[in-house]
Structure formats: C-alpha cells, structure tokens
C-alpha cells in the first residue's frame, strides 16, 4: 500500500512538473514559421501607455537561462551537435526565410557563420539557396530541423 501511495505521489509530481515545464516555454507554440513570437505587441491602452514602457516588465520567467526554450523542437539529422545553430534557426526561421528568398541578409550571414561556410563561398551558396527556396521551405508547416537538413542537402548537391 505504501509503495502505491509513494508511486502516486511521485507520478503526480512529475505530471505537474511536466505541465509547469510545458507552461514555461511560453511562446514556443511550434517549431516553424511564426512560432517564436515573443510576448505581446506594444499595448496601446492609455493606462499602460502612461508609464509602462521603461518599466519593461517581464512576466513568466525571471530567466537567466541563455536560451529562449527550444528544447521541444526536433534536431536536424544532417548536422549533429550544433546546438547554437539549432537554437538560432528555431528562433529566427522567419527572418531566415526572408533572407534566403532575398539572397542576402543578417540572419543568413549568421546561419552561414554557424554552419562554418567560409566567407569566399557565401555569395555562391546564397544564390544556390535562393534558387532552391522551395526545396528548403517545402511547406507552410515546415519545421526548423527540416529547414537545416534541406539546406545541407542543397549545398551538397
């Protein structure tokens, strides 16, 4: 009987723990386009207008964590162990998509640096990625890990 009770308590704690953990990845509602939207847009209500903006309130986590919580997303299979790259792509997939479509941009440069693409090869790589945009962003629901894998496929092709 005691064992059952203890197990029940542990299970209960784990469930609430999981629920709490899920809750704290506040704005991570997916791993694709439009997912990492941080918080609320600037509130126009007069009361808040009067004084809020320099208080710069944070709600949710008072976090000293260095990441914004991307652990829920799957990792790429064609590049392994590059945690910074994964974090970056999950959090910046929208600006990355835009940069690849444009053929240049800061997010694209950042991704190239994280992937170790040397500076002299970048122009060619960017042109290649732009030309193969639809092979990289295969659908609206495409996830960050797939984007990375597709990019590697295109570069190596």
């Amino acid at each position: 009987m005691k064992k059952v009770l203890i197990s029940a308590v542990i299970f209960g704690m784990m469930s609430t723990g999981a629920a709490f953990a899920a809750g704290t990845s506040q704005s991570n509602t997916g791993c694709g386009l439009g997912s990492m939207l941080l918080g609320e847009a600037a509130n126009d209500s007069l009361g808040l207008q009067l004084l809020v903006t320099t208080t710069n309130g944070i709600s949710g986590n008072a976090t000293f964590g260095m990441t914004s919580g991307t652990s829920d997303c799957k990792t790429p299979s064609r590049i392994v162990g590059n945690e910074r790259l994964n974090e970056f792509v999950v959090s910046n997939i929208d600006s990355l998509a835009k940069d690849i479509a444009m053929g240049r941009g800061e997010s694209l440069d950042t991704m190239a640096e994280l992937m170790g693409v040397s500076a002299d090869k970048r122009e060619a790589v960017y042109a290649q990625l732009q030309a193969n945009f639809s092979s990289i962003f295969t659908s609206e629901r495409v996830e960050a890990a797939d984007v990375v894998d597709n990019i590697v496929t295109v570069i190596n092709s």
Partner: protein
Amino acid sequence: MELFIKGYGCLRASISFFIFLIGITYISTTSVWAAEGSYLDLLLKTAEEKQLYRDRYWEVLLHYKKTLTGVKSLIDDPRFFLSSYGNKSPRNELVATLTGFFQEDKTDDSHPRCRFVARYEWLKNELNIDESQLPLASCKEFEEAHSRIRPKSVVLVFPAAYVNGPASTFGHTLIRIDGDYQSKLLSYATTYAAYADDTNGILYAFKGIFGYYKGYFTILPYYEKIKEYNDLEQRDIWEYRLNLTEDEVSKMLLHLWELREIYSDYYFFDENCSYSLLFMIEAARPSLRLTDEFGPWVIPIDTLRAMKKEGLVEAIEYRPSKGTKIRHIASLLDERAQISTIGVVAKTLRPEEVEESDPGEKIKVLDLASELIQYRYNEKELTKEEYQKDFLNVLMARSRLGSPGDGDYRIQVPLQPEEGHGSSRLTLGLGLKGGDFYQEIRYRAAQHELSDPSGGYIEGSEIVFFSMTVRNTPADGGVRLEGLDIINIVSISPRDRFFKPTSWKVKTGFLQKTMADGDENLIYHLNPGGGFAFKNDKLGLYYFMVETDLNVGGGYKNSYSLGIGPSLGVIREITEFWKMNLFANTFYYELGDNHKSYKVIAQQVVRLSQNNSLNLDLSWMRDFDVEQNEVKLNWNLYF
C-alpha cells in the same frame, strides 16, 4: 616581578601576577592560531590591515550607497549577502565572504566562491590568495556561461521611442556583450526589468513607482531582443560600442553572474532599468562614478549622455525597426506599386501577378509585402496559419527574382537620440497679453513638447512630466502661479496607405482660465482627445481631433465646466532649425458653467543649439465674452 612589589602590598602583587597570566595566555593562544595554520585568519587579518572593506571596488560590487547613518546596499534580496548585516556593514560582509570561501559543505555552483565570482576574483588578487589552500569548488555553470558568452567587448543598446507611444520617449537601455562571433545576433544581451504580472494600468503604475515589483537581471541572445524591440515594438535600435577593455568586460560578466536570480525592488523613477546597468559599467571600470550622478529620477537617454560625457562611447550603429523599413521601402515605390503591394498583402493580387516594368520595382513590392505580412502577424491581424501561408507564398515568388540592388535599402540615419535636446527644460519668457506686459519663468522636469525642436525625437510626440509656470504681471496683480502640468501626452501620428494609427492626447494639471466676469482663476483641468493625422509635402503634418475638457474650481457656476469640441493643427518643419506649429480649437461647455471658448495659436520654434531654443507665440483666445490677444517670446534652456 616580585622585586617591584615591595611597599605596595598584596593587591599590587595580585594585579601584577594577573597581568602576567594574561600575557602568557595571549602568547600561547597566538601560537595556537599560528600553529593551526588558519589560512582564513591570515586572510582576514590582511584584509583588515588593508581596509579592503572600505575599498571603492567593494563598494561597487555590493552596491553600497551613503545614507545619513552610514551605508546601505541598494540590493534588497537577502540572498545577496553572506552576513545578516551584510547590507549595512561592508566589514561584516567582507569577513563573511572570506569565511564563505572556506565553506566545505558545498562543492558546486552554490558555493560562495562560485556564486560570488567577482568578489572572489578581486579578493584573490588583493590578498594573493593561494587557491590550493581553499576547499575545492567546481563552478561548472559559470564556466559554461563564460564559454558561451566569451566576453570581449560591450555595446550599450538603446531602443528608441516608438511611433504613437510618447511614453516610450524615455527609451530603454540594455547591455550587449560581444564574443568571438562575427554576427552580433549571436551575442548575449542583459536587461534589468521588473517582474510584473499585472495588466491593470493604474495598479501597474502605482506598483512600479513605489517599488512593489522585484527587478531582476535577465540574459538572452541578442536576436531575441531585436525581435522584441525592432519587430514587435517597432522601435529603432541604436548601438553604442563602449571602449571597455576585454579585461574590464570580463569583470562585468563576473559581477553580472553574481546578480543572477537576485532581486532588487524596482523603482520606475530612480532604481530602474538604466540605473541598474550603470553598476555593471562601474564593476568593469570602478574609476567611473556613474551611479552617483543621478538624483530623484533617471531617464534612460540621460544615462547614455553620461556615458558619452565620460568618453566611453567609441562607435555608434543604427538598426532601423520594421516600421522604419516599411516606411522606407514604401517611399521608394510610386502609387501604383504601393497599391500592388497592398493587393498582395490583402490577397487580391497573387505575388506572381505583380506587374512592374522594372524588375527592381517588382522586387521592392514583394520585399515590402513580406515585411507587411510579418507586421500584420505581430499586430495579431493574421492567425498563425494565415501568416504561414501568405508569408511563404510571397517569399516563394520573391526567391525567383534575384537579389535587390546594393544601395536600394540604405536608410538614412536620423539624428542620434542623445543629440536631441536635454530632458529638463527651463524657460524664461516675456509677453504681452491684453495690453499688459509680463515676465514668466517655467520649469519642466521631463521631457519633450511640440514647442521643442524635434531632432532626436519622434515628430508630433509630446510627453511632459511635471512643469510649473510662475508669471509676473506688474499692471495686473503681480506674481501668480500661472500653471502646473501634472502629465501631458500628445501623439500625432500620420495615417497612410500602410499604417492607420489613431492620434490622441491627454493633458491634466492646473492653469489660469478666464471666468464669466472676466477675471482669471486657477482651475484644475483634464483634457483628453483623439483623432486622425496625415502628412504631405505641402502642409507638413496636419491633424484633426475631437477633445473634451473638464475644468474644476475657480469662479465657475457650480464650480465646474465640462465641454467638447473640435481642434485642428499643423506641424511644419520649415528648415532644420525652424519649425512652425499652428493650432486652433473650440470648446462648447454644455455642463456646469455653460459657455464657449476659442483659441488660435501660431508658434515658431527656432533651434539655436542642442540645448537652446526660442519660441515666438502669437495667440488669440475668447472665453465667455472676453477676447484677448497675446504675444510671447520664450527662451528655452535644456539640461
């Protein structure tokens, strides 16, 4: 010893013997200390001899400030102190800290050596601490953070005001620590912010002002901050590289680590985001005394000015917001192309169907469309599914068009915010009203009005926190309080094809108003209003509003007067240093003391230098049956 006792009896003998015993005991115990080899005691002794608890760096690390009775730390979290008197006694805290390094019950990051890495590094240096004589502690979390951040240099980041939010004129500051990466997006940024969950504006304001929120330092990748300020809040970002050395930057990170998960009461006015960052800079370079320079309030832009004054700023970069980028690209397109863009965003036009003779034009249309789709999603005008579909659709078509030309999206860098006029203002005025001369003096605490030169500020924005005007009219009553502004906020924000903001205003305070009998009385007023504004090359910025006005007190019948009426105005920048404001309104006071009022003002604003300007106001007004003309010349001094 007995040889010297003769003639003084037993008492003397006993005293001498007692002293002898004490002497022996003292010598023995000191050798016991030495014999035990208490390294801690040696360190404590040396620290005391060097008076380290009085050292400037100890003061910086513990955030001690002088009070009437001694010193007190500005940090409120008791976990920041190892001694229970640590927040008031630098000496006790130093002793407790050194003692803490010898703790043996912890070996991980919870050990004082790891929790207080800055204190440890400094004391290690000052006292030549031999680390091998200390119990082992492994500061894994700190080392991981350090190897992730790889601190090399520091940038002070300033998100400027956003359009239609004059309260944001105060700005915000955060610190970015740059490491080895070329891309600055990968740097880490630290902010001090209040942990606030309330959504009620009044409660939020009250708690923020009186320190009911806890403030914490948080650290996030810089790209998250760009998304927050640039994209979500539509704020231009200014990046000021500071000339701190790598060693100094390292020290800053050590102190920042000490403050992780440590709270301090957040006071909107003085112990706010910008003030707290100054401690970080002092921890890097303790010879700077930035935190002592500020009084009852700290405006973020002023902390930036203080750093500039100390010669800390070595380079400046401008990062336009999404809103600024949208406006810029739109300005490059003719009307037809703009309409095509709207069509693409509204999905009445498929991206592939965009017809522009010039492929460069087509590129701009789709680039603008993609920015607008993101903007609409940020404003929650699109669901996520809609956004994903529309965004991808446009980008797909865009990817087939090649790269934009090199100079195409180069946005002209506006005047740096810290180059605008200072936050406080003193005005000396001379005027003529109804035939009587007067002299006037006005003090305004903060921060920017339509009567000030616009450089460095958002056009059409006004925010006043407390101002007081005293006027002397020798021919009519002498000296009197002419007005007291508690809060004024005005936001005149032009509507165009892409943005449709509502302009608005709120003013409240005390001012002199004409009564039915022609006398002037000091009354309380509350004057909110809202409307629309537009901008074109001929007129400048022009606006229409509907306003209400509540006046209380004075000689009004029933002691109040409540009215409503239209107003219109024009703000025209004529040259870089000359601006003209025109304003006209009328109020129909239907409740309380029933009457009508009219006002027309033409104001010239002339910028003489960064912190000097002139106003020339010509006004005509009519309240009840009393008509008056007024001419006023103001000299404004900003500081």
